[in-house]
């Protein structure tokens, strides 16, 4: 019996102790009519060996591609130490540290994580994670509405925020009667102009940096505008970029009030979409409105430093219907990985990753835009992602690239009809010069409709 240690003798002794004739009897309180005859639709169990072989075959079927897709999930080198340590049984098979004295490992790690996030974001406090960047944005919107002195249920969200994030946040907040107002973007720069911010009061303005197009927003101006209009400023940031770009806590005069984002770039594999994790930091004054677990330092009976879950009165298991959120399990193991990643990279390493990613994307943009009819979609500075217009059928071109083992980027037309011929691409530090050239060469060939004999086999 896989994973069940009982011997026949054990079972007999246990049933005798219980006073039950058989295991069947343990279910005698379940109405007979409900009892299920079996699970015919489920295959018979297989050995670890058989499932292992099957999984390897499926993985081999999918293979590897040279990927230039970013659009919210970024390929970075993950140090080998990260997952070798994160999957140690003591991290991997513990749960939420309810018994603090028996969970100092996880608790101290989260406290260190919270500290790292505050230092990246320039804000005072951070929580122990949310599901992903998109739900973190939704939680930030809810939090801002709760925290706003205005009582307003209206939040301004630029169209340059990741379309999926906007959709997820929308699904989260709409049942509470909160309105998300979309702010259009400047078609020249792909960024948000202060002039385009709508009139009328709102609880908060979301400020993405970099934005979905990879472009850098005028964060100081946007933040200042929000504060001037009595709104909170919610920063939405890429954590890698924070090693290079101004911390949200330093935007404008007073800094952003809340910062959220997706932590995936910090040591978490792409993995077809998850598990990733959302991070959230805020000013001290807002901490009681923050959702999710928070770890605090304290002392033990002997006065020695130790760590506990704190401010639990915000949470669902105490506050129930009045909790700041319904979140319970979060993305603890991802936070473990991210903490290891940030410790291994350090301030200079993370900055080097940001710089190399920026430089590679810049070099790729340069290489692509020498191809006839290919041009940058937007003017202005970008971080590690940029958009080109190719003046042709994007989906077809991407398919042709895929046949060469290259994932060329994200078709912006899927979300922005006016960008139907645009590709959003990203080249992180993982890309070599040869990789960039290969992309440029293949794109040039495809656009000029030249044939190339055997498809190149990076995918294996």
């Amino acid at each position, binding site marked *: 019996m896989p*994973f069940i240690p009982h011997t026949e003798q054990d079972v007999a002794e246990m049933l005798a102790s219980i006073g039950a004739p058989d295991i069947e009897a343990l279910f005698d309180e*379940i109405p007979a009519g409900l009892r299920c005859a079996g699970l015919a639709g489920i295959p018979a169990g297989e050995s670890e060996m058989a499932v292992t072989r099957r999984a390897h075959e499926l993985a081999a079927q999918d293979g590897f591609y040279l990927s230039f897709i970013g659009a919210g999930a970024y390929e970075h080198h993950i140090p080998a130490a990260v997952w070798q340590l994160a999957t140690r049984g003591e991290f991997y*098979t513990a749960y939420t540290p309810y018994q603090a004295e028996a969970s100092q490992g996880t608790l101290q790690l989260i406290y*260190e994580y919270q500290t790292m996030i505050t230092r990246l974001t320039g804000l005072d406090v951070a929580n122990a994670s949310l599901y992903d960047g998109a739900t973190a944005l939704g939680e930030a919107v809810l939090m801002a509405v709760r925290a706003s002195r205005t009582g307003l249920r209206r939040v301004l969200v630029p169209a340059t925020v990741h379309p999926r994030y906007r959709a997820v946040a929308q699904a989260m907040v709409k049942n509470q009667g909160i309105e998300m107002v979309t702010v259009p973007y400047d078609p020249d720069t792909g960024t948000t102009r202060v002039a385009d911010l709508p009139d009328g009061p709102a609880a908060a303005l979301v400020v993405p940096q970099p934005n979905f197009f990879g472009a850098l927003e005028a964060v100081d101006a946007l933040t200042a505008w929000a504060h001037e209009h009595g709104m909170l400023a919610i920063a939405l940031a890429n954590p890698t970029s924070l090693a290079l770009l101004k911390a949200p806590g330093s935007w404008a005069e007073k800094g952003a009030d809340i910062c959220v984002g997706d932590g995936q770039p910090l040591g978490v594999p792409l993995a*077809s979409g998850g598990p990733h994790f959302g991070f959230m930091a805020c000013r001290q004054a807002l901490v009681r409105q923050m959702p999710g677990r928070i770890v605090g330092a*304290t002392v033990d009976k002997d006065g*020695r430093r130790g760590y506990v879950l704190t401010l639990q009165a915000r949470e669902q298991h105490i506050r129930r219907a009045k909790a700041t959120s319904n979140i319970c399990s979060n993305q*603890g193991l991802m936070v473990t990985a991210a903490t290891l990643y940030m410790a291994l990279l350090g301030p200079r*390493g993370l900055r*080097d990753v940001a710089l190399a990613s920026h430089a590679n994307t810049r070099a790729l943009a340069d290489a692509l835009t020498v191809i006839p009819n290919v041009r940058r979609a937007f003017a202005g500075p970008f971080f590690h992602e940029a958009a080109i217009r190719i003046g042709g059928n994007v989906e077809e071109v991407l398919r042709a690239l895929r046949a060469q083992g290259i994932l060329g980027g994200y078709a912006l037309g899927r979300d922005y009809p006016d960008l139907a011929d645009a590709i959003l691409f990203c080249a992180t530090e993982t890309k070599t010069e040869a990789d960039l050239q290969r992309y440029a060469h293949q794109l040039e060939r495809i656009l000029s409709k030249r044939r190339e004999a055997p498809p190149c086999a990076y995918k294996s």
Partner: protein
Amino acid sequence: MLIFEHSRAGRRAAAQAPRAVAAADDLPAELLRADAPGLPEVSELDVVRHYTALSQKNFAIDTQFYPLGSCTMKYNPRACNSLAMLPQFLARHPLADADTGQGFLSAMHDLQAMLKEVTGMAAVSMAPMAGAHGEFAGVAMIRAYHDARGDTARTEIIVPDAAHGTNPATATMCGYAVREIPTDRDGNVDLDALRAAVGPKTAGLMLTNPSTLGVFEKTIVEIQKIVHQAGGLTYYDGANLNAILGRVRPGDMGFDVIHMNLHKTFSTPHGGGGPGAGPVGVSERLVPYLPIPYVVEERGFYRLAGEADCPASIGRMSAFGGNMGVLLRAWVYARMLGREGMRRVADYAALNANYLAAELRKAGFDLAFPARRASHEFIVTLKPLKDSTGVSAMDFAKRLLDYGFHAPTTYFPLLVPECLLIEPTETESKATLDAFVAAMAKVKAEAESDPEWVKGAPHTLPAKRLDDVKAARELDLAWK
């Protein structure tokens, strides 16, 4: 010592940095940060040694019996981890087209079908990323259903008082008022109270079964009918699915929605607080509202369904569709168990819980519901001990740690005073349960003979009793 205390200006794990490139001189200076972010500056050995040492301060399934009630802390098969971390699975970009992920997507489709089968529901979406996230999806679907019918007067969700806090919190997040109903003496939902509570305002009921009291709701079918007759829908909180896997199916009980916690029933890791996965199954009438994406198969080709496929969907739950790596682990587990193995889960979870309850009772402990079968978990109340010795359930729990056992869940459910909610799971052996009973008996004896010693516990752990009150009062949430 904190990792920051190992930091030394200029130290670094140099093998981890990419080749250095020039500063980003093309970026406007006002957008750049002036100072480096204050991450620790440490060597690779510093990191490995620090976090290896930290890990050793944790209790975990891999090191201790961990009978944390309602959390299903069972063995996490190691193959689930290694197979979910195959390089190709890890490398795939979430926005890569479906034709680059047929292997992965076929496994997802397979899991989705298996979850449909074990719950008996009409369809499943694996988009939610945790149990509470699944609850949100479920209640949002209930709301979408009523809204689609123009039935907007329904503003209440009924929740038993024994429910997990996530239930009322979820109802609130979906814009509902919460109406609590009491539990009767035997641990069942009070049917009269339920009948009194339902009405034209009833949007639905959220119910955990087996309940958080560790017993199966005998009148589950009546409950469901009462709510349905009032025009409400029924939500089945599957947190305790481990207790009934293969034995009885929520779909067969007439429920409209169920969420599953794969980190419980399908043994994906708890990871120090997640990630979990909270797939939802629905009855026919809620299928149009399922959260996206879910996996669809057309002539052998697998892909994720999106907005265009599901115009009435409550929408996306996350940017990229769910905790795929967790789902892969659940898939491996489910394939290893198979149909017989799944049923054995409930059988032996029930056997272990009922045996442990019987043995503890013999050892002089009071069960909260002695007349009932335990499901996969059960409640001991230490009220008499507290009254006679002053030793609380919390003290008792802390002292168990000294004996090398993780404590059961304490002070939940809230209805039972000084309670321990104990869930042994099916993967623990009789020998382990017997050792736990012996430790429980020993702590009880200690409480009776030397209560101060127990109140001072733990005595042997990396930290002594920690001061929660100070933590909340003098907030120290980041190192300075």
